């Protein structure tokens, strides 16, 4: 419906001055491809530009919320690029505008944007995957979890990895890198003005990837702490297989195929359910 398009374009104009200017100066070009009639294009092009700028900190506040969920990834990014404008540019990026038009996630668009920068930092990809997975799991608790609610529901008792629980395999040093960067960020938080000086805390040298065996993580932010658990290969693999609703009998068989006896498989499923890592429901 065109009113939703109007709303989404207006929101893009609020966050992106450059796009707003294009709408004011050349609406047909800036709004090309959108299902809007002449009157609707005119409505956008005749907005008072000043009314879009009454909140000069809008972008900073949004970045603050994004950075709060991706502190280490952002620190590594800024450490390499050395300019906050590299983050501001997110609001002019294709991932941002695509997300706004598709009712998508600004958070996921931001991680896509960070990846698109193709930075040299070899630790960034896995750090970003961990922080992104935590964010995705937090979001699964906010609204119906699509991997469960959008999947076909089995006709008998089924089980699935609980909303807000994920699995991830990353470089074995990833958590060490994250701890080191978080220590720097903590020091900066003690005296925020240190961010203005040249001899303040900096991201320390990080060990190169590939030196340790990969780390198998279960992502569970609702559990508190870092939200990251190391539960071993069998549990990790089993949880990874329960992405969508799976017949309870099939889930038991899957656990057995991982090398567990039937009794141990039943016990594992019981324990995972008790710990809130899986859910079980009847249709």
């Amino acid at each position, binding site marked *: 419906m065109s009113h939703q398009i109007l709303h989404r374009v*207006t929101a893009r104009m609020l966050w992106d001055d450059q796009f707003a200017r294009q709408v004011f100066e050349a609406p047909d070009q800036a709004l090309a491809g959108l299902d809007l009639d002449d009157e609707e294009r005119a*409505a956008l092009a005749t907005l*008072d530009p*000043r*009314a879009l700028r009454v909140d000069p900190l809008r972008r900073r506040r*949004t970045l603050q919320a994004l950075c709060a969920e991706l502190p280490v990834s952002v620190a590594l990014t800024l450490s390499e690029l050395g300019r906050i404008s590299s983050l501001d540019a997110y609001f002019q990026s294709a991932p941002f505008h695509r997300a706004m038009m598709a009712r998508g996630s*600004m958070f996921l668009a931001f991680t896509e944007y960070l990846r698109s920068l193709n930075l040299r930092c070899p630790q960034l990809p896995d750090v970003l995957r961990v922080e992104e997975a935590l964010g995705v799991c937090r979001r699964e608790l906010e609204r*119906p979890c699509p991997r469960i609610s959008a999947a076909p529901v089995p006709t008998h008792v089924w089980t699935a990895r609980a909303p807000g629980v994920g699995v991830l395999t990353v470089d074995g040093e990833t958590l060490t890198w994250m701890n080191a960067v978080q220590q720097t960020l903590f020091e900066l938080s003690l005296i925020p003005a240190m961010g203005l000086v040249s001899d303040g805390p900096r991201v320390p040298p990080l060990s190169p990837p590939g030196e340790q065996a990969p780390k198998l993580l279960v992502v569970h932010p609702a559990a508190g702490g870092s939200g990251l658990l190391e539960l071993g290969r069998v549990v990790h693999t089993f949880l990874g297989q329960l992405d969508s609703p799976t017949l309870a009998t099939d889930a038991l068989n899957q656990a057995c195929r991982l090398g567990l006896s039937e009794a141990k498989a039943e016990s594992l499923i019981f324990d995972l359910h008790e710990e809130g890592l899986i859910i079980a429901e009847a249709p």
Partner: protein
Amino acid sequence: MSPLLQNAPRLGVGISCEFNGGTRAVNLDAVALREAWPGLIHFLEVGADTRRGLDDHMRRWAAQGLPTTYHFLDLNLAEAEDLDPLWVQRTQAIVAELSAAWVCGDAGYWHVGAREPVHDVLLPPVLTRSSAAEMAQAVRALSAALNTLVVPENPPAVAYVGPLHLLDYYAQVVSDGDCGFLLDCSHLAIFQASRGLTPLTAFDGFPWERVVELHIAGGRPRQTEGLHWMEDTHDPEPTPQAWAVFEAALSRAKNLKAVVYECEHNPAEEVYDNFVRLNDAFPVEG
């Protein structure tokens, strides 16, 4: 007219609160204020969301069995798809805990895109007929899901898109949605000023019999690159334009049930006189 609307109780004058308002430097405790000023504060309008739920202040009020209304801060009534089963389930639990007389909230967009922490921003609806029709549909669905009266409110904004006047837009919403209306007098005064209109423009023809609640609060004049606008700061003293809207609405809204003075982040002595004024204007006994 919906039985839910016809049977809505008269609540009198209330005060607003928001989640963890007590962490702010100045915050009025509604329970204490009600005891200190007998007869001036009759209900609490609880502003909360499903992510954070209720805080101690809200629970203390509700535990005494005192009247409440629930003001959501996380539903895009302008976007029917935002009304998902998980939100409904969590809101039902909150409404039940509060025994809220009805559910109200700024009827526009509380977030851009889906409900996510980063997306929080209050934006107005697009003022067109198709948007009003979608909002009316969302209101009906919400009221049916909660089995509760739903009372949309006109939100604050500096910029609006769409040709309709705000009151014409919400007239369609409340008529098609068969619901009540919460007129925020200060928000309407801001809208009228932003379009260069007088405070009572478009009052004729509005379905005033559906207005069950009024809000009033103070604001501060701002200027951005020469643009004069009013920020909805909830300061103690409403503008003369907001009072003009309030007085005119009060005389027309024959089914009015509640008035909220949005003032909780101000010193008590600065809001006392207006609580007296509002109670004189709208006595709880009717």
